């Protein structure tokens, strides 16, 4: 690999992609409010509240 010209830049780019990816992700998490996350986490539990009929079409 050392024979390839300009190879030194590769690990630096790789490290940058890696660090930026995690910094951005963690920053976005940090910025999320509790109200938001509470609302999102309730999504699977809310759905049944409005079931009006589960028995009108039978097979």
């Amino acid at each position: 690999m050392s024979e390839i010209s300009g190879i030194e830049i590769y690990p630096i780019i790789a490290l940058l992609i890696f660090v930026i990816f995690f910094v951005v992700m963690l920053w976005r998490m940090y910025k999320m409010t509790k109200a938001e996350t509470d609302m999102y986490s309730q999504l699977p539990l809310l759905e049944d509240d409005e079931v009006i009929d589960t028995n009108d079409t039978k097979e």
Partner: protein
Amino acid sequence: MEKVEVRYDNKIVKYFAYATITWGIIGMLVGLIAALQLAFPDFFNDYLGYKYISFGRIRPLHTNAVIFAFVGNAIFTGVYYSLQRLLKTRMWSDKLSYLNFWGWQLIIVSAVITLPMGFTSSKEYAELEWPIDIAITIMWVVFGWNMFATILVRRVKHLYVAIWFYLATFVTVAVLHVFNSFEIPVSFMKSYSWYSGVTDALVQWWYGHNAVAFFLTTPFLGLMYYFVPKAANRPVYSYKLSIIHFWALIFLYIWAGPHHLLYSSLPDWAQSLGVVFSIMLIAPSWGGMLNGLLTLRGVWDKVRDSAVLKFFVVALTAYGMATFEGPMLSLKNINSITHFTDWIVAHVHVGGLGWNGMLIFGMMYYLFPKLYKVKLYSQSLANAHFWIATLGILLWTIPMYWAGFSQGLMWQEFNPDGTLTYPDFLSTVTALEPFYIMRSFGGLIYIIGVLLMAYNIRKTVKSGTFVKEEVVEVTPTIEKKKKEKGEHWHRVIERKPVRLLVFSFIVIAIGGAVEIIPTMAVESNIEKISQVKPFTPLEVEGRDIYIREGCVGCHSQMVRPLRFETERYGEYSKAGEFVYDHPFLWGSKRTGPDLAREGGLRSDSWHYTHMIMPKQISPGSIMPAYPWLADDDLYTGHLEKKINVLRGLGVPYPEGYEKEALSDLQKQANKIAENVIRDISKENSNVQVSDIAGKEIIALIAYLQRLGTDIKAVPAEETELETSMK
């Protein structure tokens, strides 16, 4: 906002759920047969020695059936159920839903037919031949299209994290499947991999590892994030953690594939990347496991009563164990003991039986009472299933860990004088027989548990009434975008899910691209060795028989640069030896010895007798007998096409050679037949050269006798020098 009526399609969920249970039982039974073949080889050789059920053909059938039929149908069951409810909309198209269902079952049936017939690409978990590969691609697009369109017409604004996992699953599996399946057809059910040797190995294990990641893990994490909160009736422990879990997991997972190729001829830098990323994977994996388990905080008392939650708890625990063990196995010092042994098989089954199996069972016990609007027939039977399944997992995995560890150490053991303590490979296999018997028993117990579940569900179904459509009234939290006059069609598409899809693609593409492109593009990664020549026509045919019979399931062709390996097998394998291998056949398990240096070690007649009845020539051998190879004529009808296709892939056969190939093949076959006859004629003087020269076994012997001979032809120093000079 006005309320709207929505009708969730339960019928498609029911279809997939039934398919899950049916294929689960079949796939596990096939696994049990394979396990019994290793435990009682003599019984199978003497009474059930049919080619269609020989171990090499049955093993891929087992793996394909449990991965794509059992787990695959379970994914669809869970996704079709949860997606509609999380998005408050019916699936976008019923037609696509049922096309997805029937298409997938058809693919499974074609696998059940073609794998025992010996139609295989030999690439692990991607064995199905090219026409089925195309069908899989189409069906996967049907699934993704239906899912994505459903997301676009949803009635809730935010996409719950489970759906993120579903989307990443769709994108990544599509990419993996397409890139790993590049192959050039020779005939209707035969193809050669587009890649060769080292590149093929890297692409295959990038695929194989991420099939585990994106078929057995991410969709199940999505299901976990939906069904665990539902069953516990509590929101997930930390939504932020689930998002971190998602992005970190898909980003890191895709890099880890090379840990399947440690100490192999893969360039070192790629191996190191695989190790580093595997270690990092512990963090998101355990984040997800803890997030699931902590969702149950405060409701652990429910776990005592609910079989569903019990299954989920063990599933998550098994996930935690497997994802801790995986990174440990990718450390080179541990890998040198465990690789090629039954340890890996145990590791896979902690994931398969524990994580996938238990999550599926929990999901089934949750779903059927809902689908049939009735209580589960028997909670105590479900609890019994739980304990039986848990016991089955322990009885399955503990003997295999033991077997793997013992065998790994036996391979490495040296006497004080520097010779191997167990020079005879067979002695390290016969030592494992009790473990193979115990493992079969563990598997049997696990299957009994599944049968109990099937009975329990049948009784539940009988006592309830199927709710074909669940009708709900929902308040949309998202405005329907209407297409305005002159507006670009793009605007109609909601931007966020598209963005999510694109981001997921970019994130998973980085790792794959960084590892694969340089391996293919930079020549110095695969040093050419001038002595390595293409296979002769007879060897090409023999290699295809080797592939057909699934020999790669038990025999590796990769001598690692470790003293105990070179002492046993000879010079370690070099990347340049495999440049004409389409596909590569390095293997991942040594139930039998490595064959990379097999050529010339034994006589042609030894192989002839050994193949017909292995234990006759090596007593105690657990290898299946292949008597049909000596009976069946070698079919050479595709030889010309094979030579042409291989030349097209870069194997340097001279132009026009395809016309001479057949006569070269016959010449070489006659020579081998003469050798065989000379040795065995004492016992059976009636056999003529013409009787056996045209048989399949001769081609296979030609191939085996070629293995490693190119490099043996030159002194070791010279090859070292040659490679270092380049």
